[in-house]
């Protein structure tokens, strides 16, 4: 194994006390950072230094640190989750950066994502979109036979691709309109593609889009910034599917 390299970085980190406070950038020197660290581990190191000096550590969201929970949410030099495609912040490693680089770290910004503290934002708007219809209604009773409903392999693959959305909100942060359509498109798609979810697809798309609008996310102008920023590679195809389902559901609803 090669010996780990270390780098020094300058970080300009967004600090904000509570949702009503006025934020500002605070500069921190990150010294002797191992290139084998993840981006979040670097923040752990910096926070340790801040705590030792009696300061207030930088608040940031994180949980699984293996790219599947959707909690980490940092905008690094304008890119949600940093410079690499299909990589969440927790899976971004310091070897990706050059010695002496300056990084601007901000929260996932949008009006619908109020900052709670520093880099932590409230993304419960996305949860409310799910709660509006992003589920399959199941009657109580015995569990069904897993193979009782045939699902074509291709449909199951497409549904799985859509279901791999971790709801992190990078699409919203990347969008110049702060639109949540990629997220909603993924959630609408993954259920509508399966027979268990297809029965409720019309009501689902109407309810979820209504909730998305109510949360005051912006409208989509098809720039594709969401797709580029998505750590899970959710495609615009899911959004096109939502658009046509929404049209069909709107014109046939009664």
């Amino acid at each position: 194994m090669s010996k780990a390299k270390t780098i020094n970085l300058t970080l300009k980190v967004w600090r904000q006390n509570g949702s009503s406070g006025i934020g500002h950038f605070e500069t921190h020197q990150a010294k002797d950072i191992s290139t084998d660290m993840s981006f979040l581990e670097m923040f752990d190191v910096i926070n340790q230094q801040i705590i030792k000096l009696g300061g207030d550590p930088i608040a940031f969201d994180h949980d699984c640190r293996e790219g599947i929970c959707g909690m980490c949410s940092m905008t690094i030099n304008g890119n949600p989750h940093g410079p690499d495609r299909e990589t969440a912040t927790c899976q971004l490693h310091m070897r990706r950066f050059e010695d002496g680089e300056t990084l601007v770290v901000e929260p996932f910004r949008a009006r619908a994502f109020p900052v709670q503290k520093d880099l932590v934002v409230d993304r419960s708007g996305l949860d409310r979109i799910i709660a509006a219809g992003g589920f399959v209604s199941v009657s109580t009773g015995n569990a069904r036979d897993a193979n009782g409903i045939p699902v074509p392999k291709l449909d199951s693959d497409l549904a799985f691709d859509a279901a791999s959305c971790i709801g992190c909100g990078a699409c919203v942060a990347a969008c110049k309109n702060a639109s949540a359509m990629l997220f909603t498109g993924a959630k609408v798609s993954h259920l509508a593609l399966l027979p268990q979810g297809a029965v409720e697809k019309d009501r689902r798309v109407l309810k979820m889009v209504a909730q998305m609008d109510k949360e005051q996310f912006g409208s989509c102008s098809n720039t594709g910034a969401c797709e580029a920023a998505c750590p899970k590679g959710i495609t615009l195809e899911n959004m096109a599917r939502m658009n046509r389902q929404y049209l069909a559901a709107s014109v046939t609803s009664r």
Partner: protein
Amino acid sequence: MSGIQSTSGPGFFTSSIGKKYVVGLMAIGITLFALTHMLGNMLLFVSPKAYNIYSHTLISNPAIVAIELVLLAIFLVHVAFTIWTTIENKAARGNRKFLTTKGAKSVSWSSTTMFYHGVVIFFFVAWHLKTFKYGTNYDVTYNGVLMRDIHRLLVEVFQSPFYVWSYVFCVVFLGYHLNHGVQSVFQTLGFNHPKYSPAIRKLGVAYAVVVAVGFILQPLYVYFFMKQ
């Protein structure tokens, strides 16, 4: 009652997706108009007579006023809905200056600046109508039919380098607008499939280049080769 309750959400035309559909559908009308307008203008390269007769045929059609009103309505609805969504989108973004994505996560310039070229095109169209449609009315007679000599006005207007280069500048913006617009309409209407999407993107670029280059050729030709 279990399950997803039936909805009484906002109406289709006030929903975020409904507004997209309206903008996209209106754009189809304008996009096709831009192509036919460009192709009609190509008669400039045939003869002044062909150009004038084509123009006369269009404006002497009894339905022309109705058609013009429909076209104007399409244009204004497109503009109104985009202003409406742009205001909402700016508000949704929040107050802080927005850092744009970069590198592997960057997106095309034309897609993020649609509103701005839209503004340029809007004022260009107004100016263009004032210059030509409501410009000086010269007369010419072909085969005993008195008609408007729009060709003469055109040649006269395009002697001005200011007008020629402003026209070229605005049409380049129209090209950028179409570059994103054409493929965007397909996405909005729900056409996105790995089989067709690469071709749709190429179609968008080709459409923009053909329309913009076509429109640009005409003033340049008059300016450089039809000196009065």
